[in-house]
């Protein structure tokens, strides 16, 4: 079911808003797309890494096997003259920087940390050699639990720190103490959210080659941010300028934030390539991915909600403890998760007072980075569980309690209690869409008939969110980010034959941007979208850009493409007008033709004039048909998408198993450029969120050994586990962006843990059991239910 409610009227001549087929799908479906692992360079050799088998230990210098070839084993000592350690910074007082060596030296701090790199003609031979290198490590007591890491006597990861805290911060906003004193109801809950990882289908990978003649280092890299990685490589590598580094991100099989940071493997390959007469490649296997690709979430939370019996929410008190792992990743740092969670917690609610504390601790585990949603899934889980439980405590229907406290559409722009400036959105309507789709009344009717003997209990729950997207320099600066993701770029060229090439600084990793950006360019130029060819992901071919993160690409790159195309259209009009004997304002651009009152010219003819027949080009018009444009949003606090997820579940009280019966997403991402792509983004995100709610969990033992290193240990939902997801769309345009679009990439993944946990809690209400941790494990539910008895009357 895909019901478009209240969608804007689509103008007949516009291609934005149409569900056109994705330009990239032909090569993807035909298997002709080229990913990093498909790149073959002449004489290319393979790299395998020697990784730490222990979570914490003193490392002796690596001994190179006597029979190893001269170029085959690379140690920290051997790369020392070539690389600098990764030090992710954040311009916030009290933030502790980690120094992450490219190859470990002195100490290892998590299982999987790089110790040495081995080069051989095949990966199997590289692994043969790698396993003969046994690092000398004296194990140290490790810490793998975030609460234990805060203990006074806990092992300290970084010698220069006085404790294990990356950053702790807190604020009290509004009349908090008065709200607490006035409150008639206070509800407190302790929550946990497991550590998960983005887990793209395509693992990481890098091919690096150095051309000694030109001095150019080329990296084929599965990354979301080719230009920024290039900038960072120039900082991390000794002896090469940025202009001599080329980063090419070919086809990417998913990233979800996991390919947004700079990884030591990438720096190591770049440095080794500069020393070697042949190119090298490293393709991460799934085992390595579980050890050394960025991980995410892992919260320990304590929340208290204060409210009146009338249903007025007064204040929230929140504490977030996040396990940041051993090293801060560049550039997100370990504190990205906690900082975001605290800022977005108030969500779509009018909240008068808010107190929060965030603590991010270092543990002997892989670092955490951004993962679709960044902090929001944990914040929305916390807030929405509290909204549900507070409603229960008051005796209100949870969705009514939410609606009672939601910001009205008419209040925008609305500055949230945490200082976020919401541009637009109609949260109450989204909520009522979701409530209607879940048919809450029928669930309540069925629940009234439940008896103590019933095995299968049904429940319904919701999760509401606002999502800051496409925020500009001001917001990144406020957060203390050393890189401000303040603009995006596009360059459009119409070739002498009339074909259209758009290059952009963002990188598509599955979002269909080659299609949506073509739709935007096509409308501005007056062309069929099929004629617009989009290229991205090559730092030599494309203008500088910040990359695809933070649900920014459609708005930012869309703004850049729209800006460049509009300017180019102006030039086309001018050339046409000069040749058609009319004014530029008389020219209409449609279907690749410029039409004036007295005749018309094809774009191909105009391009020919612009490049090859300058006799027809007025001297005051610059030759060529190419325009570059960098889009910087006029308002840099971001545009806010919003959504409400609803879940209906059945819980088997004999086994604790949760069955997802129905799922609805009511969402508003402003102007929809391609409805089919929007649906795909939402469904894919929701599938990941369902995984987090019910299955996914990276487990470590107390010594820091990872216990989930294969897809047999780490469960993800498959087609059978993801129910049909009903979608309801609303389009509340952003006043701040080109044609009112808002970012959408992350939204689907944000609310499922909240909605599903609330539905399960709703189902088990008669037993007095509610969900305190994510993922929801059947074992935990059954254990909690075992000692409880059924309340005959609704409590």
């Amino acid at each position, binding site marked *: 079911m895909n019901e478009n409610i209240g969608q804007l009227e689509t103008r007949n001549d516009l291609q934005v808003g149409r569900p056109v087929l994705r330009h990239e799908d032909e090569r993807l479906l035909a298997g002709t797309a080229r990913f990093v692992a498909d790149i073959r360079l002449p004489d290319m050799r393979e790299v395998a890494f020697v990784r730490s088998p222990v979570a914490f230990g003193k490392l002796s210098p690596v001994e190179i096997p006597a029979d190893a070839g001269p170029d085959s084993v690379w140690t920290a000592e051997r790369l020392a003259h070539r690389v600098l350690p990764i030090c992710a910074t954040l311009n916030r007082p009290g933030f502790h920087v980690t120094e992450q060596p490219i190859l470990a030296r002195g100490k290892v701090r998590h299982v999987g940390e790089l110790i040495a790199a081995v080069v051989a003609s095949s990966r199997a031979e590289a692994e043969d050699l790698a396993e003969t290198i046994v690092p000398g490590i004296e194990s140290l007591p490790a810490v793998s639990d975030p609460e234990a890491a805060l203990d006074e006597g806990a092992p300290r990861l970084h010698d220069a720190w006085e404790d294990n805290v990356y950053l702790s911060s807190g604020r009290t906003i509004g009349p908090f103490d008065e709200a607490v004193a006035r409150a008639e109801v206070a509800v407190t809950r302790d929550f946990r959210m497991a550590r998960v990882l983005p887990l793209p289908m395509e693992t990481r990978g890098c091919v690096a080659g150095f051309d000694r003649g030109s001095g150019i280092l080329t990296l084929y890299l599965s990354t979301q941010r080719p230009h920024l990685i290039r900038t960072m490589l120039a900082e991390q590598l000794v002896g090469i300028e940025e202009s001599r580094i080329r980063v090419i991100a070919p086809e990417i099989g998913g990233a979800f934030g996991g390919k947004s940071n700079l990884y030591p493997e990438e720096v190591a390959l770049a440095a080794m390539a500069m020393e070697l007469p042949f190119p090298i490649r490293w393709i991460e296997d799934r085992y390595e991915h579980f050890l050394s690709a960025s991980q995410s979430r892992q919260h320990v939370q304590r929340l208290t909600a204060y409210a009146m019996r009338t249903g007025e929410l007064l204040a929230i008190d929140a504490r977030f403890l996040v396990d940041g792992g051993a090293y801060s990743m560049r550039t997100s740092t370990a504190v990205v998760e906690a900082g975001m969670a605290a800022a977005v917690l108030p969500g779509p609610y009018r909240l008068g007072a808010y107190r929060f504390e965030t603590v991010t601790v270092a543990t002997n585990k892989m670092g955490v980075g951004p993962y679709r949603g960044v902090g929001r899934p944990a914040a929305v889980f916390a807030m929405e569980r509290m909204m549900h439980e507070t409603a229960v405590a008051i005796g209100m229907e949870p969705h009514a309690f939410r609606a009672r406290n939601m910001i009205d559409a008419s209040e925008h722009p609305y500055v949230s209690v945490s200082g976020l400036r919401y541009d637009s959105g109609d949260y109450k309507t989204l909520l009522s869409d979701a409530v209607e789709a879940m048919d809450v009344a029928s669930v309540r009717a069925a629940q009234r008939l439940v008896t103590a003997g019933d*095995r299968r209990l049904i429940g319904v729950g919701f999760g509401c969110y606002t999502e800051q997207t496409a925020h500009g320099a001001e917001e990144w600066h406020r957060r203390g980010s050393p890189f401000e993701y303040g603009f995006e770029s596009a360059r459009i060229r119409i070739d002498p034959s009339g074909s259209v090439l758009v290059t952009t600084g963002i990188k598509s990793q599955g979002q269909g941007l080659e299609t949506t950006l073509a739709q935007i360019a096509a409308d501005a130029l007056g062309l069929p979208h099929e004629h617009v060819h989009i290229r991205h992901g090559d730092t030599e071919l494309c203008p500088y850009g910040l990359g695809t993160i933070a649900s920014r690409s459609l708005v930012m790159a869309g703004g850049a493409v729209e800006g460049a195309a509009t300017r180019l259209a102006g030039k086309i009009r001018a050339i046409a007008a000069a040749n058609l004997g009319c004014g530029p304002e008389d020219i209409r651009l449609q279907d690749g033709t410029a039409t004036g009152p007295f005749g018309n010219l094809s774009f191909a003819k105009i391009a020919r004039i612009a490049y090859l027949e300058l006799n027809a080009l007025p001297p005051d018009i610059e030759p060529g048909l190419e325009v570059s444009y960098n889009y910087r949003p006029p308002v840099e606090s971001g545009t806010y998408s919003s959504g409400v997820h609803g879940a209906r579940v059945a819980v088997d009280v*004999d086994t*604790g198993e949760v069955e997802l019966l129905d799922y609805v997403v009511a969402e508003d991402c402003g102007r929809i450029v391609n409805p089919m792509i929007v649906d795909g983004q939402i469904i894919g995100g929701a599938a990941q969120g369902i995984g987090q709610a019910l299955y996914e969990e990276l487990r470590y033992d107390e010594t820091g050994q990872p216990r989930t290193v294969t897809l047999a240990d780490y469960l993800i939902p498959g087609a*059978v586990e993801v129910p049909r997801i009903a979608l309801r769309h609303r389009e509340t345009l952003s006043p701040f962006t080109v044609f009112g679009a808002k970012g959408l990439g992350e939204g689907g993944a944000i609310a499922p843990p909240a909605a599903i946990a609330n539905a399960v809690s709703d189902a088990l209400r008669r037993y007095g059991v509610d969900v305190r941790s994510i993922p929801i494990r059947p074992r935990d539910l059954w254990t909690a239910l*075992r000692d409880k008895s059924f309340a005959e009357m609704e409590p």
Partner: protein
Amino acid sequence: MKPSAFRYERPASLDALFDLLSGPGDKAVLAGGQSLIPAMNFRMARPALVVDLAGIPELREIVREDGAIRIGATVTHAQLEDGAAPGPVQSFLRRVAGGIAFRAIRNRGTIGGSLAHADPAADWLTALSCMQAEVEIANKSGRRRVAMEAFVLGPMTTALGDGEIITAVVLPDPGETAFGWHKAVRKSGEFAEALAAVRLAPDGAECWVGAIESPVRLPGRYDPAALAGDSRLGGRPEFEAVRQGVREMAPDADDYAVQLAAVAVCRAIAEAGAGEGAA
């Protein structure tokens, strides 16, 4: 995750196979490779020689022997899912085979390979125990048949000796016996957390439990009528009897594992009674 170097042989006959197996060095027999190959990729298994059974036609055959059905060791789960085994065992075999992992795995994984690996969570161990199967084992000098209880000695441990392979599984004619099956999994395609296989005898249901333990037969026989329908939390006496039976046979299992297994037994009994898994 690449295997260490090994030699690969694909003999065309059992005689050639046994010759290879009698040589020196660490050897592994490749039946379907769905457990062996991952173990080799992780370098947990490092055989010097891998002998692939796929080239031996006899091992792929399914034949009737009087009332019994003899299923060759390299018959795949997918073949059984598709009904390759004839006669009264067909539907139960289809039911069990169709629930093993994913179709891609079922296309390669074999019944003999699964038994030889003897992972307690493997579906065939429990199902074939309940079906009172015999495992045909061969070596250079001959063949023997071993009942399932005597074949599985413990987790990942079997009665297979050096130089021996499984050549077939022999299933006796179950007559009118109805079977039931239940597999408790966190998600589709995963290894079971608990398995239950049930055969309805005139004097009650005989039940086997797997996954929480190598397959064990519960001591009692249970009245299907008393267990009909769902088990319900908080214990009817009939359900408590099943749970007690599981607890007795799997003393090391934790409370949740015992609960899951007991629920699986009740659901398998219900299925057998409903005729879904009936022969």
